[in-house]
């Protein structure tokens, strides 16, 4: 009898474990499903190609081109700026500091801490800096804030890839007389290029989807940004603002914009998977 009970217990728990895994999948499906059902009817060509016209926020004509362009400018700028800092730093950790374990571990620890800080805190900090230098809300301030926010993400994901590269590769390169920076950029970075691209895409996805950090710093506008000191609209914020309107047509457009954002994120995710698959296939294996 006791023996039977334990097999029943086994099957019971196996069942609810499978159920909870299934549940997580269902969450994703209902999430994407409900966004699509609500948003697809609201999508139109006009929405992607026009900026808001007069009376847009009362349900009249116009689109969210200002937010799409703003989001792209902002995240591309921030990703580029973050790359300039992240790539050297992650190479520095893995080539120059490879001998000093405690330093590597503490910088990784610090980066994990920075990763954990909520984006709203970065936003508030960006705002403080902005006030200190007397800047207005602008594309530049937004880019700087988002850059700070995505640097830890980018460095840590690059670092995870660079860590797996075989040590022998570095030693061979150094023994042939190349300098450390040549080894870093021409050997290690090239070996891990697909992993680095994955990290960049990941950071780009975070940058384009985050609303809290740009709330204070990038501002909001109905126009396309003309220069780097203009305020700029972003897609997440435009969804947020349109959804808080009481007018049904405007809310409909929020759902439409949500479909756009989801689509961008899914596209990035597919690209990421493709590159990490390529990385697994191409990389030099440890002997």
């Amino acid at each position, binding site marked *: 009898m006791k023996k039977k009970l*334990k*097999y029943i*217990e*086994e099957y019971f728990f*196996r069942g*609810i*474990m499978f159920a*909870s*895994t299934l549940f*997580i*999948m269902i*969450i*994703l499906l209902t*999430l994407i499903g*409900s*966004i699509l059902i*609500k948003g697809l009817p609201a999508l139109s060509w006009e929405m992607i190609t026009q900026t808001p016209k007069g009376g847009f926020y009362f349900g009249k004509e116009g689109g969210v081109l200002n937010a799409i362009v703003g989001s792209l400018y902002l995240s591309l700028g921030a990703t580029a700026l973050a790359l300039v*800092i992240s790539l*050297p*730093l992650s190479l*520095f950790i893995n080539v*120059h500091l490879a001998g000093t374990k405690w330093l590597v571990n503490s*910088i990784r*620890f*610090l980066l*994990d*801490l920075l990763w*954990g*800080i*909520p*984006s*709203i*805190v970065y*936003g*508030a*900090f960006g*705002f*403080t*800096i902005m006030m*200190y230098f007397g800047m207005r809300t602008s594309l530049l301030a937004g880019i700087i804030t988002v850059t700070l926010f995505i*640097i830890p993400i980018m460095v840590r994901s690059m670092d995870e890839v660079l860590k797996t590269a075989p040590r022998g590769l570095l030693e061979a390169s150094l023994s042939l007389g190349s*300098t450390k*920076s*040549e080894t*870093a950029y021409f050997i290690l970075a090239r070996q891990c290029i697909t992993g680095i691209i994955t990290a960049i895409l990941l950071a780009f*996805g975070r940058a384009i*989807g*985050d*609303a*809290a950090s740009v709330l204070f710093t990038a501002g909001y506008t109905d126009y396309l940004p003309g220069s780097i000191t203009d305020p700029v609209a972003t897609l*997440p914020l435009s*969804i*947020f603002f349109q*959804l808080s309107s009481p007018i049904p047509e405007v809310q409909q457009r929020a*759902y439409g914009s*949500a479909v756009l*954002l*989801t689509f961008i994120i899914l596209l990035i*995710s597919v690209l990421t*998977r493709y590159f990490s698959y390529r990385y697994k296939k191409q990389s030099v294996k440890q002997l």
Partner: protein
Amino acid sequence: MDIRRLIRIDRKNFRIGRVLRNSLHFTWMQITFTLIAILPFILLLGLMYKSYFLLESHSVTSILLSPNWKPLRGEFGFLPFIISSIWITVFALLIAAPICLLSAIHLALYADRWVLRIMHPVIDILSGIPSVIFGVWGIVAIVPLVAAAAAVFNIQSSGYSLLTGAIVLAFMIIPFILNLLIEIFRNIPTSLMEACLSLGFTRWEAIKYVIIRKAAPGIISAFGLGLSRAFGETIAVLMVVGNVAKIPTGIFQPAYPIPALIANNYGEMLSIPLYDSALMLAALLLFILVTFFNLGSRFLIINWEKKI
């Protein structure tokens, strides 16, 4: 002209160029390293500098423990926000924790290859979905559900409540915790499981009596990291939680967590004296709490990894 001399000069220049480039790169790397190393302290100082104005006229205890939030009269009591934040985070963790734990055990110790092949992209996509999309989904799907549930209990509720916020938040942190937990269960040596099975345990018994105990510190720290992640989530929670600055007394009551407070009031913060300072103090509080949780969890997990 002696061609050898030319070659020699050329080589020399080439070498100088390489050394120069190397040192340039090295300098830039050191600059980025320093930048990141001091960034947390700059963050802390920047927020402290701004919130100092409020602390000059109000004492810390009066701010943290007063329930009155009336910026126009100069009363800045954080208590409703702190309590809202704690309740929402705790409820979110209560919902997410069992699902994550069971699913992680399933994926790490039971699942077939095809399940993993499906679930890996699912978790990746779920963790990449922006906060605001979760918020939209919360409004579309969860808010009516919660309103209906409240009606069953005969409670008046619009659906924009503490419970709604907690549910949306729970789904947001599930992929994050799940990834950590799977990693932790994979780190446990398979020999443990094999030894148990050879003694006649069923798989679940082995998990219940041995694996879970071995993994306990790791599991706790994964939940700790999830907690700190949940604590700082802004937009999604802000959209569904109702935002009423009172201490919530039930799960169907609207709440107002700290991140929502900061995000919601950026518009009027420059027109009222000390308001911006109060919001920066809220950000500082958030920063300190989250970092504290993160630190604790990370130390726990590092110690645990050393032991294994």
